[in-house]
């Protein structure tokens, strides 16, 4: 006990100090959206390069293991795929015809800005949420590459999530299967609006929940495509979320809810595409602009 310095502060005071600081930060974070500021930048420089390296090594090893395993499978699959190719070629030619027709119609309606026109940035997933409660992950592109909060993230053909935090060379993405995620969506075929929410409980079965769907005519069937809706304030319209798995009438007899299978394989995400165009939002400070014709505002994006 003698060796203890006289001026050392008792640990309970340090604990109280840290506790107060944490509570202040939580309040700041809740009210002003404080997310670590310079701390994020500094730790980004510390972690991102190492995490990138580890991931490359990991991918290399898993690729090598997969190669051997897959060889036999691939042989069998090749024959099946050849058949499918023939079938799809026929289907494709039919679709091409329809596509030309669609293009003509789009040109007529000046709706030629579909989501293939969004500018995108490819990024690698370099780290996953350390806990088991949430589904967020870190990508290796940040504000230096033009990533901002609220940008949409895709993988392959489907919606992965949204950027929720940005550092200099990293960004945090919250997946749509995260328990706190809500996406305003619609059924592609009927244009009925609904809400898609991530759910940890349902995710163990590989599905996420869909609710508040008005479908009085029972037109929405198993496998119907669910895409992001026009009325969403953060997601671009028409991004594929998944396919209807099952639907049940709610107790109020007006709306339906059920589950959908996501279009993206969240277990094996390696690289994603970030749409660097943000959905245009109404700025409350902005002076009211000259009224534009209805219908156009929905599809226009920020340059």
């Amino acid at each position, binding site marked *: 006990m003698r060796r203890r310095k006289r001026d050392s502060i008792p*640990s309970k005071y340090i604990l109280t100090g*840290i506790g107060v600081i944490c*509570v202040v930060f939580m309040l700041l974070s809740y009210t002003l959206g404080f997310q670590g500021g310079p701390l994020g930048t500094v730790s980004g420089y510390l972690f991102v390069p190492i995490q990138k390296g580890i991931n490359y090594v990991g991918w290399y090893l898993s690729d090598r293991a997969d190669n051997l395993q897959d060889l036999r499978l691939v042989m069998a699959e090749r024959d099946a795929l050849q058949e499918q190719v023939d079938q799809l070629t026929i289907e494709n030619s039919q679709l091409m015809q329809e596509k030309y027709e669609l293009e003509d119609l789009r040109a007529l309606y000046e709706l030629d800005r579909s989501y293939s026109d969004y500018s995108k940035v490819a990024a690698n997933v370099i*780290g996953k949420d350390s*806990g*088991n409660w*949430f589904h967020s992950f*870190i990508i290796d592109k940040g504000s230096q590459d033009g990533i901002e909060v609220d940008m949409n993230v895709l993988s392959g053909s489907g919606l992965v999530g949204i950027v*929720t935090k940005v550092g200099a060379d990293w960004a945090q993405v919250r997946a749509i299967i995260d*328990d706190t995620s809500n996406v305003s969506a619609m059924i592609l075929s009927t244009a009925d609006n609904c809400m898609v929410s991530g759910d940890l409980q349902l995710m163990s079965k590989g599905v996420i929940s869909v609710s508040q769907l008005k479908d009085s005519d029972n037109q929405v069937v198993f496998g119907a495509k669910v895409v992001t809706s026009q009325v969403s304030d953060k997601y671009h319209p028409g991004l594929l979320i998944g396919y209807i798995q099952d639907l049940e009438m709610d107790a109020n007899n007006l709306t339906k809810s059920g589950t959908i299978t996501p279009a993206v394989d969240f277990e094996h995400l390696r690289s994603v595409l970030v749409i660097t165009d943000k959905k245009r939002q109404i700025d409350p400070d902005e002076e009211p602009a000259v009224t534009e014709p209805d219908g156009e505002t929905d599809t226009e994006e920020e340059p």
Partner: protein
Amino acid sequence: MKKRICMFFLVVFCFILQNTVLKALELGAVSPNLLLVITAAIGFIGGRKEGMYMGVLCGMFTDIFYGQLFGYYTLLYTLIGYANGFFHAVFYDLDIKQPMLLIAMSDLAYGLIQYFFQFLLRGKFDFGFYFTSVILPEFLYTVVLILLFYRGILVLYEKLDKLDNTGSVDEFV
């Protein structure tokens, strides 16, 4: 001072391991919590203050990269480190059962706190599901991790402690 620097890099190392390698070794969508293991372990090996400093670092990194409310994880890990520090007085380093029990209890507490603040308060009432499919598997997986890592942490900490203490004694003399 050397000890502090080494501890900092230990946290960095464990944090990276946690988010890359251990996430790749998930079983049933659940991975063990290495950050909690080192925070709790340093807590009862080194005392309340050491545990707290460890908790601050682990929590802060988690907050920066994966947090939603900045400061939440920092507070949580700090409290875990501090609470484990109370057992420093009865800590006996040749016995593995006691540290295992302490760390396992910490992980259970962590899981329950997470459920309470992040899920129950948002109206997710199915405690049975969350307990059996997240809290319990993480608890068991973490126990396995203790067996693998605990001895290493203990030896490392004691070496660093000696390094710093001999240094300070020399200065004193």
